């Protein structure tokens, strides 16, 4: 219990510091949310509460903003973040099939995090390396010219690593 509290207090400090940093900016809600997500990986409820207390803000507008922009995540993400490109070039090169294989092998559906909290799979639009299509990134590292088999092997290896 005590441990959890300190963790929570740590989060609150992070949030306060970020809000302070943007204090003199006009229209700061989005940059604040972005910095919080960068720091914590998602937007905790406590952050929403605190931002909604800022002058000129209210909870319903804020919730509208957080849910409007697809970047914001209200749930923590997995240790391993897999982005599957669904840009035009990757779509033509078989992104759907790659997604199927990844989700099947990881045991989740896309947009979700595995029950053990280890792997998150999300769709993104063009990662900008279309000549390597189809492309995915795993924690920011790019894997291009994938085939369904290669994708399966990759995910199997990731699963093995996260289990250890």
């Amino acid at each position, binding site marked *: 219990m005590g441990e959890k509290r300190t963790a929570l207090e740590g989060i609150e400090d992070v949030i306060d510091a970020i809000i302070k940093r943007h204090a003199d900016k*006009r*229209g*700061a*809600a*989005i*940059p604040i*949310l*972005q910095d919080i997500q960068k720091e914590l990986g998602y937007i905790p409820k406590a952050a929403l509460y605190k931002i909604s207390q800022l002058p000129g803000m209210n909870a319903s*507008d804020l919730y*509208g*903003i957080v849910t*409007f*922009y*697809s*970047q*914001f995540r209200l749930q923590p993400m997995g240790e391993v973040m897999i982005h599957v490109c*669904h*840009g*035009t*070039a990757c*779509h*033509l090169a*078989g992104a*759907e*099939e790659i997604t*199927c*294989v990844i989700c*099947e*092998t990881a045991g989740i559906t896309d947009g979700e995090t595995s029950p053990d909290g280890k792997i998150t799979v999300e769709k*993104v*639009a*063009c*990662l*900008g*390396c*279309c*000549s*390597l*299509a189809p*492309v995915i990134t795993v924690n920011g590292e*790019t894997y*291009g010219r994938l*085939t*369904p*088999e290669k*994708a*399966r092997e990759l995910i199997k290896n990731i699963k093995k690593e996260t289990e250890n």
Partner: protein
Amino acid sequence: MHNKKAVKVGLASCGIAAGANKVFDYLESHLPKEKAELKKTGCIGMCFKEPLVEINDEKGTFIYGSVDEKRAERIIREHLIQGNPIEEWIVYSNTFETEERDYLKKQHRILLKNSGKIDPEDIDSYLQVGGYEGLKRAVTAMSPDEVILEIEKAVLRGRGGAGFPTHLKWKFTREAKGKPKYVICNADEGDPGAFMDRSVLESDPHSVLEGMAIAAYAIGAEKGYIYVRAEYPLAIRRLKIAIEQARSQGFLGRDIFNKNFNFDIEIREGAGAFVCGEETALMASIEGQRGMPRFKPPFPAQKGLWGKPTCINNVETLAAAARILSQGAEVFSSCGTEKSKGTKIFALAGKIKRGGLIEIPMGTTIREIVFDIGGGISSQKAFKAVQTGGPSGGCIPAHMADLTVDYEALKEAGAIMGSGGLIVMDEDTCMVDVARFFLKFTTGESCGKCTFCRIGTYQMLHILDRICSGHGEPEDLELLEDLGEKIIKGSLCGLGQTAPNPVLTTIKYFREEYEAHIYEKRCPAGKCRDLVEYRIIPEKCIGCGLCSKICPVNAVEGVRKQPHTINVRKCIKCGSCAEACRFDAIEIASGLSEGR
């Protein structure tokens, strides 16, 4: 010291994705420092051969393609130490012909002239190639009106998609009442198959800052914003470095060139909403709200950010402005067609041999792009169509390949110039599926404000889903066309007004493909999953087991040396088995006639 060789590694996102950082690190620790100097640069443009390493020495310029650590080792040994270029790996040289040289021949690099040449993280590198000369000329030798006139003479039109004359936008903002005024650089680049703006920002960020400062001087603004996609971390990092450096050298900040001109730039990151590329939505987003477009007029030039006069331009437009001011209007106006002048950058991708970032004079034909620059189709299949303009654009069929790329011709064909995505498709591409792909994208990105855009696109998508799954009805085509027209008329912003384009152009040019889906329940390209079935022909299968090993979802069943079968319930129709089979034992069946 002069004969020291220069070694440059292309370190834009595309290069890094292909492993350029590893190559750079290897070179850094293994390069004989007394013989060669190692430098970083941005995108050289030949994405199909990344990672790229360029060597400049007394013999000439040599660009090596597909470099990995192994190749780097031999390049150091043979080229840098022994002085013998390894010709078979060289994709471009000014000393001999390579197959890939054609890729550059028909290009005309004005905007990309520094990309892949300079170090994007070093302002001196930009200054050495004439950087900030345009701003200097504008601020020290011209009045704002003269700057606007220079842009008019160059006939620069907005590169963000709509092609609105840039000088008019600047003039309107200059003349608008109200202070302060703002300059915004639109770097949201939402087309899901395009990366021109990102590449410019990563490879030559100062050009964009210079263009913004010139615009600010012309319209009388002191503050600028760059609204850049959060998905572009490298571009953001390089922009931050560039802004710092420009400030410290006095190109941004107060009293620029001692002419009492003040201007500074703030970066705002997008948060993953395509509609925020639309100018009024973008401004709402900077103001900290949901990115909902609003009705125009008033235009941003009158009432923009925080209700003040605002000039909003695309990345490429602003980079072009910097070139025009430094090199004169003629660099631009001397090429192109009657109404579309200058060059345009395209992200060439899809089923093409040589994909990458290309800059071509307006008026180049699609055939020249696909075959002369792109080297033709990457597969064994025939060229079928190109798609321009992403989710707002359309598909142009192969038989119209002599169409020129300029604002007017593309519009007439039902496509649009767009921001510069150019996707090449072959016979394996299902046009109904392509239309569905784009519509799915716009449906998801509609902000929901206009009923037709919100519900109309959803209905269209529903119909396309139905057609692709074999449940299409004869009246669906008329329904799609009717809905499409209504959505175009009934939407407030460009998102809805253009969303039906991919569907309408594919119906126009590939109607028979829709009809095959609807009447014969057949997907001619073999792409629509519900309409195809993979089957193993028992007479041909020898039971080698290769397909069952390769199948990523374990859908192939059977014992060794016995004909196998495919479990249709598990099969995701990825085609891996058919590709792997050495005995032609796997057939793809589609349509009623084949007994499905």
